[in-house]
């Protein structure tokens, strides 16, 4: 890719990001609903832990889990499944005929989705901390941020990979996404720590295949348990590996699926 093409693709990234931010925040009631509903969900878990007299840091685990879950839902439904909607509205055809990299469109979607979700997730996080008086022991904010951004990178790369499935299989891929919603919430330990002794080893092993597990665990340790980079280096290494493997894999999957779609004639086929 030469300089001119790079600038062209960056313009496409920015444009798709702009659409997502502009579109996502045009209706204020959407914004309110997207903050209030997750806080209610988190409250249920926090009250449950309080009822069974779990250690106070468990409330913090739940709030961080709920905050990160917002990103996973965004990846799954507003990133992966987006190509399905784009196909139905005729936008995918326009994207595919335009002289841009498909990764530019996905990157724009990812960044726009990240900004939108970050606004909502921050509101959920702050509300959760204030309402439930969660004890915070954050001594290394940079480490927490590093883990957070690595987790986001890995999640969105995973989303890009799933987008290629939606591009070709449409509604058939919908079930896969559904399948990934609850089990990942369960395996990655959104509302409980997977490293605790009550979680069976098999589940711990399975959960280690998901980048969200390492991200959640790392951020919880640094932000709630007061641990430092020396304690979470394994999480950082795992997340770096996820990013390095998933990004090129997403690029390959996208090219492969596009070519397959062109061969089979399914690329712009609707209602499948």
């Amino acid at each position, binding site marked *: 890719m030469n300089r001119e093409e790079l*600038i*062209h693709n960056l*313009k*496409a990234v*920015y*444009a*798709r990001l*702009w*659409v997502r931010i*502009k*579109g996502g925040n*045009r*209706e204020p009631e959407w914004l309110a609903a997207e903050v209030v509903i997750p806080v209610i969900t988190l409250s249920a878990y926090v009250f449950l832990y309080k009822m069974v007299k779990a250690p106070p840091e468990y409330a913090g685990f739940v709030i961080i889990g709920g905050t990160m879950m917002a990103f996973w839902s965004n990846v799954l439904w507003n990133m992966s499944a987006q190509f399905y909607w784009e196909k139905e*509205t*005729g*936008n995918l*055809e*326009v*994207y*595919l*005929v*335009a*002289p*841009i990299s498909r990764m530019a469109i996905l990157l724009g979607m990812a960044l726009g989705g990240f900004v939108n979700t970050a606004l909502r997730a921050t509101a959920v996080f702050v509300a959760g901390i204030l309402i439930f008086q969660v004890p915070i022991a954050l001594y290394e904010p940079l480490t927490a941020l590093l883990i957070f951004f690595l987790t986001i990178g890995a999640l969105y790369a995973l989303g890009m990979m799933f987008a290629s499935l939606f591009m070709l299989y449409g509604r058939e891929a919908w079930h896969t996404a559904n399948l990934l919603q609850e089990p990942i919430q369960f395996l990655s330990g959104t509302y409980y720590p997977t490293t605790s002794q009550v979680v069976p080893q098999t589940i711990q092993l399975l959960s280690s295949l998901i980048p969200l597990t390492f991200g959640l665990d790392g951020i919880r340790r640094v932000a709630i348990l007061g641990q430092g980079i020396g304690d979470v280096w394994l999480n950082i290494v795992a997340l770096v590996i996820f990013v390095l493997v998933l990004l090129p894999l997403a690029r390959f999957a996208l090219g492969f699926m596009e*070519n397959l779609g*062109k*061969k*089979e*004639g399914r*690329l*712009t*086929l*609707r209602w499948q």
Partner: protein
Amino acid sequence: MHVANEILNYGILHCVSPRDLMPHIVETHDVVRIFKGKEKPVKALDKVSIYIGEGEIFGLLGPNGAGKTTLIKILTTLLLPTSGEAYVGGFNVSKEAHKVRRIISLVSGGETPGYGILSAKENLWFFSQLYGLSSSIAKARIELLMADLEFEEYAKTRMSRLSTGYKQRLNLARGLLNNPKILFLDEPTLGLDVLTSMKLRAYIVDWAKREREGTVLLTTHYMAEADEMCDRVAIIDRGRILACDSPLRLKRKLEESVIMKVEVSSVQADFSFLDHIKGVIGYSQTRSIQTDTTSFKVMLTEERIFADIMSKLEAQNLKVLSTNKAEPTLEDVYISLVGRGFEEEEGPDHES
């Protein structure tokens, strides 16, 4: 029907424009496209060879399922041919897709690309960025296109609130943003009212003439649209190009035929007897439940055969409401080639 069979038996027709007069900007060589069907494979394109000159408005005319959209998808890099080769702007659509995409644009009728929550102008800005236009150029082009296509007053209206006609104007404006060398229009006036269709047609013709090298490949199943807009028309049916020439020359080929339009007083009238009358080249029919009438158009080798038809109608106790001699249209060209009108026995719609 006899003429049709002769043409089909003759083999594959190559649609060639005069090479000496204009360089070819679109070329297909024996393009075949086969889709996996539910029961058996469906051949959507059968050795299609067309050559389109720079600056031409070229029409692909055929009923639904004829293969028009399949061909346009191959030329716009959305689909690979099963065999054969296609070139757009000198670039191979299968191997140099990225280069092809830089010089083309695709506008599909009935589609509303864009985001409903954004305004018309915001949508156009977004699409301009997919072609890497600078802010100043994008702004100027958007203003110009909105003015030309007469939807300036809706610039700030959300796309979801626009009527079908204005959405299609927006869609066409989107297709012209990058000033394409070749504009592909797939049924651009599908579902639009007469006035909007006329305006869009006029604008497209004007655009192609203004852009000295602006080439248009248009697919349509509206005869009048092809007749009015196109320099040349290829008639396609069941994946085969049956004829290719200027609308005038295609119609001139029928000068020796006689075309009669008849209206009879029953919606259930049966015209299958026409298949057995020697000298009937083909016919098409339109039934109206509201008026309980059927109109049919029949193409004959000689006028005297019409007397036989009238007596057959009388024998069926059908009241003839009107008879007229008609001038040949592109529909008649199609009837002469296929033996039936567009509305009958359309091919499988494997493209949608």
